[in-house]
């Protein structure tokens, strides 16, 4: 995918984010919305350019990951607002979007299983003798859970085509990364496996692309797993009820300076794209996303017709 295409995906994700923040500001419910603002370069850089048969296990603010993997915006939005035509008919909302046919199997709610799942998908890809890969994103929370070690040991042992992408965004709810990891680094320990472990500026799309590209290449070539840790920043509060009063204003201001959208735009301009073309693209995307959201919000609610078929239904 072209750099411009990647930037477009980042813009779509940010526009979705802006719309949701805006609704929240107006007191409207946006259930389970976890803003992905600030992390679009890492998300898009990590998930774009893969095949449908490659698998991505996304993280809870990874709308940009879903978009980059090919999940339509309207599916994400319908799931978010419990509308018909999403992927899960209000049973999982935006926390459990899936699209198995394009390599998006879903997300676990209690962090942990994603790592074993990644190993399982990688093993499946190996057992089928394909050169497909599995990419698994995770934040500071999931990254401190034991299943990561268990699964990575398996992946190294069996040379599984797994790419782990650590999203070091400074926070886990209101806990600082340095309260959770030595030296505030999530991936350092995995160097001990003698696999490639790369720490990149997660807001630099080019750096992310290079590191993930190499990790994917290795995985496809049967050379086993890699870890890419992207240093980025969560620009918005954890979730709607969080006022993020704990975020130092100066730190946030600095992070805003390094907004991946600004940086990516600047890189595109530096590489010769006309600013006017980008202005037009930005306006177009904003308009498009606004229209999609309006349509989604006007659409019918998801219907709940699944229960009688579930095992063991009984009760009230």
């Amino acid at each position: 995918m072209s750099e411009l295409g990647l930037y477009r995906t980042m813009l779509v994700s940010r526009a979705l984010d802006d719309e949701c923040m805006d609704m929240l500001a107006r007191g409207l419910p946006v259930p389970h919305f976890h803003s992905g603002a600030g992390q679009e370069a890492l998300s898009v850089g990590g998930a774009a350019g893969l095949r449908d048969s490659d698998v991505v296990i996304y993280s809870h603010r990874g709308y940009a990951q879903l978009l980059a993997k090919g999940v339509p915006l309207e599916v994400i939005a319908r799931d978010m607002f419990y509308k018909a035509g999403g992927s899960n008919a209000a049973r999982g909302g935006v926390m459990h979007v899936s699209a198995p046919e394009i390599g998006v199997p879903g997300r676990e709610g209690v962090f942990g299983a994603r790592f074993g799942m990644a190993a399982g998908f990688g093993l499946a890809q190996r057992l089928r003798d394909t050169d497909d890969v599995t990419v698994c994103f995770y934040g500071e929370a999931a990254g401190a859970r034991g299943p990561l070690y268990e699964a990575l040991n398996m992946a190294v042992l069996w040379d599984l085509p797994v790419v782990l992408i650590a999203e070091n965004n400074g926070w886990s709810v209101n806990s600082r990364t340095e309260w959770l990891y030595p030296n505030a680094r999530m991936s350092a320990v995995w160097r001990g496996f003698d696999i490639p472990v790369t720490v990149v500026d997660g807001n630099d799309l080019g750096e992310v692309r290079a590191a993930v590209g190499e990790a994917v290449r290795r995985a496809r070539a049967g050379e086993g797993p890699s870890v890419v840790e992207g240093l980025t920043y969560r620009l918005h509060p954890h979730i709607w009820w969080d006022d993020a009063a704990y975020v130092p204003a100066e730190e946030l201001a600095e992070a805003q300076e390094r907004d991946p959208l600004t940086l990516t735009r600047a890189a595109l301009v530096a590489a010769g794209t006309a600013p006017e073309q980008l202005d037009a693209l930005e306006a177009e995307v904003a308009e498009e996303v606004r229209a999609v959201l309006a349509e989604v919000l006007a659409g019918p609610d998801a219907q709940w017709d699944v229960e009688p078929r579930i095992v063991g239904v009984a009760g009230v």
Partner: protein
Amino acid sequence: MSSVATETRVLTGREAFRAGIREEMLRDERVLVLGETVRSGGAAGVVAGLFDEFGPRRVIECPVSENGIFGAALGLALAGFRPVVEIYSADFLLAVANEVMNDMAKWQVQHGRPDEPLPIVIRGCMAATEGLGPEHSQSMEPFFLHAPGLELLTPSTPATAYAAMRAALAATVPTLVFEHRKVYELSGPVEGGVIGERVTSGADVTVVAWGWMRHEAAHAAERLAADGVGVDLLDPVRIRPLDLDPVIASVQRTGALIVVEEAFVTGNVGAEILARVAEALPGHPLRLRRIAMPDVIHPYDARLERAILPTADHVVAGIRTLLGD
């Protein structure tokens, strides 16, 4: 700040849990708080302020490493501390089911010291509010009911929240305090709560309910009272060990029992209560029933979720059906 409990405090459920912990921390410096985000008050604000008051040697901010945290709690307890461990949402206790039920619950017995206290309090927010989805809404007490060696507390009001936290801190075995999210928001007097309350008295039907369901049942009792149906409503507060004597005595009078429970119906606590009552009163023509969640995981959409959570309406209808049979 003063550590002296006054007789007239009115607190929210959240504050009542906190008061129980804080007072014991003031009394005994071996009491530690461990968990995720506890430095900033924890998942639901129950331990808010404790880090500032007691500092990082008493309130220990942990990585999101549930197995590590619960293992550490066991080590700390065996080393003479009294850890109060927060789980971010009670649903996540399944991730430490082995530590809680195979390790902690069995430890002192299988090491030949059944009388030696193992003071570990495990606590966290639990149960459904509105659309939190099935991994942040479940009523977890049935999953932990089967393990010998644990105490389980499921308070329902600020007063029972406070009493339950104090009871947990006084317990000699690892004790789980399930803090219902809706109970956090209630306001009421803190003193005077007891482990096992009779909420209303009545001669027609015995109802057992705890946590939020106590309130649904109380509303139902009120509505039925207007129709002349007397509900003997018991809130055990402690689920394991459960004091069955008042329940059995009541059913001997009423002949009818309904357990109202927020958990999925199959394998819930109500099953155990019905079984115990039936076993205690063989050959009696009893009417026994559970009102509970169907075996359906919580939809994210609160509209849909509301359709399956047990409410006062269900209790009223259930009692009418049971008595009308």
